[in-house]
Each structure stands twice: as C-alpha cells, then as structure tokens.
C-alpha cells in the first residue's frame, strides 16, 4: 500500500501524493504517459528509491524507515522485473536465474538449485538457452530470463516494469498467460507498469492511470472506458 507518496528529482516533481493499494491475488496495472513516474513508483515500492514524503507499507511495515537487513527480508518476498531486464552481463542465463537461489536458498543443494533454474527457464520458454550469455540473446528473451529470475524465490509480490515491451505479439501473449497462471497458482499481488492496453485487459484486475504525478482514475478497464475525463478518453483512444 502506498499512501500520499511524493517524489522529486531536483526541481522535477515526479510523484505528487499518490495513494494505491494492492491486495493478495490482485494485479494492478499502472498506466500513464512516458515520464509520469510509473517506474519510479515501482522503485519506491521495492525500496530502491526513498520517498520525499508519504509511506510505502508492505505487510503493514513502512519500508522507508527500515534497516537494510530488515528490508532485505521483505525484498526476498518480492520479485522485480526491470524495464531492460538488468541481467548480470558477466553471468550466463542459468547463473542469472540461479543468483537469488545461491544467496537465499542455501539449504538447497546445487542439483536442487540447478533443477529449479531449469524449471523456471522452461516455464518462460527459455529452457534451451541455459549456457548463453545475456548479450547473445534478444531483448525479449532477456526479459523472459529476467522474469524467471524475479520468480526464483517464489515471491508473494511481483513488480513488473513493462513486461511485454519489445516482445513480439506471440511472446507478449505468452508472458501475459504466464503472469495470469502465476497469479492463479500463487495468489501473488502484482503491480504491472505497462503501455500495452491489450496486455492490461488480459492480466489486470484493476488499473490506475497516472497523470501529472497523481492517479487520474482507478478502476477496472470497463470503468476507465466509461470515464468522462478527457485525459482518460484520449489515453484509451490511442492504444
């Protein structure tokens, strides 16, 4: 839950008192024009940025005031897919996905970790690319590997920053199906930042449309379609 969140970078005010809530098993899609602070919102939620004011509450705890170790414990329950995947370029695809397991699942044996990695990569359709380096695969494939890495610790909260951007329609539909499947199986709370209205219709229970650092409207896709707000109508008219 984020409440009255403000964030500025220098003189540029990005978020201006945003309040949103996501419950378990729910997928919230955050929409908005480029540069309206959607990615910043996700970074604030996972604690990579600190808010100027307001609070980010996860399991009732305000993460802004938490020590790094305690924040780490909460982060273990969160999976984050970066906009450009942010794969470790010196590690292979397999090692990238194994990274969180090696650090936080030390009770698992090497072979168990290996099997889990293969399972995750197969789930995102990257089972045949274990030994490849991130530079050897396409942007869409990198994104799928990033998604597998985000799912490695079986998170309860999933943050996806433009998961289908740069993917072909078939791969984008596959990622959407995967997110839906995970939501059904694990009842994760997900926040998806996207511009892809087609994807939003498939995966999101609720939508929040940002405009000038604030939530212009929040509701289901149908509710947004019925809105009289000029910005909302214009946004939906240009998918």
């Amino acid at each position, binding site marked *: 839950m984020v409440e009255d969140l403000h964030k500025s970078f220098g003189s540029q005010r990005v978020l201006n008192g945003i309040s949103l809530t996501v419950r378990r098993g729910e997928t919230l899609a955050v929409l908005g024009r480029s540069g309206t602070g959607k990615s910043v919102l996700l*970074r604030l939620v*996972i604690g*990579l940025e600190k808010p100027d004011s307001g609070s980010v509450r996860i399991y009732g705890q305000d993460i802004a005031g938490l020590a*790094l170790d305690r924040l*780490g*414990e909460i*982060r*273990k329950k*969160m999976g*984050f897919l*970066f906009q*450009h995947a*942010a*794969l*470790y*370029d*010196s590690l292979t695809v397999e090692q990238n996905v194994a*990274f*969180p397991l090696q*650090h*936080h699942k030390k009770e698992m044996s090497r072979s168990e970790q290996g099997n889990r990695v293969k399972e995750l990569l197969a789930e995102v359709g990257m089972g045949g690319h274990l030994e490849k380096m991130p530079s050897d695969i396409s942007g869409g494939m990198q994104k799928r590997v990033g998604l597998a*890495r985000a799912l490695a610790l079986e998170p309860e909260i999933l943050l996806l920053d433009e998961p289908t951007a740069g993917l072909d329609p078939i791969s984008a539909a596959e990622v959407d199906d995967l997110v839906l499947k995970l939501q059904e199986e694990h009842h994760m709370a997900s926040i998806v930042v996207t511009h892809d209205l087609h994807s939003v219709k498939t995966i999101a229970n609720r939508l929040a449309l940002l405009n000038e650092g604030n939530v212009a409207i929040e509701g289901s896709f149908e509710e947004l379609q019925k809105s009289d707000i000029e910005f909302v109508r214009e946004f939906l008219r240009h998918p």
Partner: protein
Amino acid sequence: MYRSAKSSKGFITEFLEWFGDLGIFSWQVVRAAVTPYEFRELFLQLDELGSKSVPLVALAGAATGVVLSLEARYSLTRFGAKSLLPAAIAFSVIHETGPIITGLVVSGRAGAGIGAELASMKVTEQIDAIEASAVHPYRLLAATRILACILMLPLPTLAGDACGLFMGWVAQAMVGPLSLHQFISSGFKGASFNDFLPPTFKTAVFGLIIGLIACFQGIRTQGGAAGGRPCGHKLSSPVVAVRDSRRRRASETHHSILPLSATRNWQNRYAHNRSSCDGVTPSRARRQCASRRGRRFAQVLWKSKGFERH
C-alpha cells in the same frame, strides 16, 4: 573575477563533497563487509586482481630493472663506486621502484577495470537488480574487491621485484662479467627481512586505496557509458593517491628518498675530496655535485652507509 571566485568555490565544494561521499561510502562498506561474507566472489576477485596482474607487473618491473641498472652503472662507474651497483639496484627496486610500479600498474589495470565494471553495472541497473534480489551490493561488489586488492597487491610486487632484480643482473651481465650469485650476494649483503617486508607489504595500503577509490567511483557513476568524468576520475584518482601516499611514506624513511640535508652533506664531502685530489676548485666540484648525477651518487653512498649500519 566574480566568475573565477564562483568557479573555485564550486570546485572546493565539489572536492569536499567527494571526500565526504568517500567517507560515507567507506563506512557503509565496512558495515556491509562484516558477515556473512561473499567468499565465492572474493576468490574470483583474488584471481582476477592478483594472478592476472602478475604478468604485466613483472614486465614493468623487468623494464625498470634494466633501465635502473644501466643508468646506475654509468653514474657509479664514473664516480668509482661500481661495486655498490648490486646493492643500489636491489635496494632501489625493493624499497621504492617495485612497490610504486606495482601500485601504478595495478591501479591502471585492475583499478580502472573495477571502476569500469561497476560503472557499467550501475548504468545498466545491474546493481539495482542485486539490491532488489535482497543482496547487499556493497558486500558483494565493493567489499570483496577492496579486500582482494589489499590481500593480493604484495604478490605482484614480489613478482615485479624479482623480475626487476633479475633483469638488472641480466643488463649488468651483458655489459661486464658478473655471475648471478655474485650479484645477489653483493646486493643483499647484510640485509635482513626487516629491510624487505615493510616495502612489500606497504603495497597492501596501495591496494586499499586503489580498491576503495575504484569501487567508489564505479558505484557513484551516473549517466551513460560515455561518462568521461567518472571514468577519468576512476583512472586518475587511485594513481594520484598511490603516488601521494608513496611520497608521504618515502619522506618518513631515510632509505627511500634522501633528506635534503643529508644530500648536501655528501655533496660537500665529495666536493672537498675532488678539490683536494683532482685539483678542481671547490666551487666547481660543488657545481658538479649539484648536477643530477652528483645527487644520485650522494644518494647511493648514503644508502650504502645506512645499509652497513644495519
């Protein structure tokens, strides 16, 4: 005038900010480095920084040994102190040249490498991804690299020293008959471990400086890959810091750089001897001593005197 005052104020503020940030960074790394330790990454970095720097340092050490040997031979022969040549080479390589060459080469190779690697990770959000995976990036990336620099720098120093001495002997052996045994026994006559351990292990301090500044500059990088400013800082800062630290340390020990008064003392003695033996006027002899070679000769004599005292 106003503009110039404003720009110098900005420079001073930026400089102080840099030091403040470095202090905060160091404290955060120390806090992060306690436990649990990232041994796998540490061993990787030990290999990367230590063993892979050895060939380059050895090459630089060998080249320095040859140059030093040939230059010193010319000067010492001229002043009739050729027998001091092995000692002069051994002491100057082990005390100063070896450690400083190692520091400069490692800061150029490994320091810039660390800085560039971390900067690239920063701008491509890989460091954020590490943090988002609930792994402390300072513990994983900075602490391991800094510790690896501290632990490994003495190793290439030894390799650089060995190559410098060996090539110093080779250069001598090519000019005149001198066996390796003679060279070593004459060069290390009366020397103890205490003469060699501090200069070798002071490179651990160079390692701390190189690792700390390289990691700091890399992690604080902003913007894109062009990043001329951070890259320039990254390359130059450890080099400058190593050079300055060496200067400070050198001035503390009379073995390393001769105090000015001592140099003058030996110059005066030499001038007196030349004027009495060769009939050269004292002022002319003093002028000759004031030359570069004269100073160097005085330094070698001083070193040999200090050496005999031990």
